[in-house]
């Protein structure tokens, strides 16, 4: 029961943080709100017995990357963003309506399914805590999940080069 309560608490924190990121007018507030979302996500990982990932989430995302974000925001000296009025004011209303409708559908579906609960896969929580969280992850990533691990490396490489391409000054 406590686990369920923690899940809902962390889920609310995460979603509220994410909503704050897109809706707050000042970019600095957005970044701070993103920290809340990341911390909530770390809490969610904890409720799933993934301690290592939770710590990594805090150290790398809420720590290192957020500092970087804050630096960029402060260096760029961003003002309050100008709000361009929507061409069709009904867009906001219909968007919200569809969003809420979709959310209701998802809720109904998730709660009507009976087979979603229970541990699945080769590594349920008991087994993981038996061997050790970090150990399982390290060994799995470099043996069975080697292809996704390497493909992830290529994906990050794309991100790095792509960011440089889009951000650099023009040569001429």
């Amino acid at each position, binding site marked *: 029961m406590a686990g369920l309560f923690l899940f809902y608490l962390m889920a609310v924190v995460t979603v509220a943080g994410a909503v704050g990121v897109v809706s707050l007018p000042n970019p600095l507030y957005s970044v701070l709100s993103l920290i809340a979302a990341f911390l909530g996500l770390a809490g969610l990982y904890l409720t799933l017995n993934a301690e290592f990932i939770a710590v990594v989430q805090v150290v790398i995302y809420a720590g290192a990357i957020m500092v970087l974000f804050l630096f960029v925001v402060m260096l760029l000296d961003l003002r309050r963003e100008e709000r361009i009025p929507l061409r069709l004011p009904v867009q906001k209303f219909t968007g919200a309506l569809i969003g809420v409708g979709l959310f209701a559908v998802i809720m109904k579906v998730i709660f009507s*399914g009976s*087979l979603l609960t229970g541990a699945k896969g080769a590594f349920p929580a008991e087994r993981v805590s038996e061997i050790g969280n970090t150990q399982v992850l390290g060994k799995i990533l470099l*043996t069975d999940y080697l*292809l996704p691990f390497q*493909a992830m490396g*290529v*994906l990050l490489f794309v991100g790095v080069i*792509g960011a440089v391409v889009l951000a650099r000054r*023009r040569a001429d």
Partner: protein
Amino acid sequence: MPLVIPDISLSIAAPEVGLAILICVVVIADLFTSMENKAGMGVLSLAGVAILALIVLFQWGGGAQTTFSGFYIADDFSSFVKLVVFLTTIFTILLSLQYAKVEKINYGEFYVMILFAAFGMLVMASGNDLISIYLGLETMSISSYVLVSFIRHDPLSREAGLKYFLMGAFASGILLYGIALTYGLTGATSLTEIATALSGPQGAAIADDPVMVFSMILIVSGFGFKLALVPFHMWLPDAYTGAPTSIAAFMSVAVKMATVAAIIRVFFIAFPALAGKWNLLFWLLTVFTMVWGNVAAIAQTNLKRMLAYSSIAHAGYIMLGIVATTKIVGGKVVFTPDGLSAVLFYLVAYMVTNLGAFGMLIYLCREDFRGDNIEDWRGIGQDHPWAGMAFVVFFLSLGGFPPTAGFVGKLLLFGTAIQNEYYWLAVIGILTSAISIYYYFRVVMVMYMEPRGESQPAIEFSKAPSIFVALVVLVIATIYLGLFPGSIITAAKSSVAGLL
């Protein structure tokens, strides 16, 4: 927990390994190349990809082999897809070598990003697990976002990239949610293990669970976004119009090929138990896509935008083949490989045709005159009969006239649909292709019937030999596949034979 090293064979995954090495070589070589010689990076990539294509050809006929703990599968189907991806890459680079200078995007990273996208497509084609397919899809998509917004001094290109990125990121999220729910129900991400779970003792209960149906809908929508099926197509016209023309050509063929390959693998191998449901969904999406893609194309005055809508319509024809593969006989689902081999042939036909059509736009493009409006082509048929003829050949093939590749492709697709009793689908398909003839031939009419205006700049085609060679090869291939489609059809048939 003992460390068990799984059996990993790099030679099975040679195309991917080789492409990763090629990417590193090009990235490093780019550092030592001066701004004037960046086309050399294109030539280097071209040579590398050609060698890798030969490696894939050598792998052809080797039977299905899995490695990387079942994450990777190499069979004739994946080899077929990889060959199409490599050929598209080769033609894209040929069309880009001079065009990149015209658009002032002549950086080494341009070719690196094309190679990265191709890498993602290869991983998708060989993906035997939802995780590796997703990672390939994401590698392909992120490289495409960058490629679309590569003309950074053009606001249109930046806008296109941003729109594509937002929609694409959203679609990836939807796809991932579907994958997560599937894992929650079946405890597996491997395609074969999902199929085992769905056919096991609990299988029928899982397949009927509303969550399973919902996760399948999410996966369909996620792939639908990437393939730009109506109503998930909103990003495509803007993205293609703003993108560099050679990239629009690349995406319209290669991204479709890889996504279709992933769809075929995921749905036919992992979810045959749900075939009745996803087939109905795909049926609806196919009809919307064929109708709206063709109707919206009529109103376009920009050729790139018209070809973008036409590519939406063609995605509909491709999906028609996938729908027609499933046949329901007496309440039981039977897969007929004819539909899938028709899809593969159609994709090859579409590759040579559409690369050619976009290639014609690149042929006309120069620094002060982009030439992507329909009226820019006024009088070209009279003044430049050969160029006009080439464009007519591509339009004939897009519209599905004999003796071109597009005709054989549509014949196979509609033939399978009728054979498997999808009469409505075939009728709608044929009617919408009739609509498409209108907008393709409007361009032909402008080229031949309308004289060039006084104020219009004189026609001056690109003098780059690479573009000329690519276009000649594509025209010949379009007609050749229309007259002698046998070898490709046989190859397509044998590549899907081991799949179903």
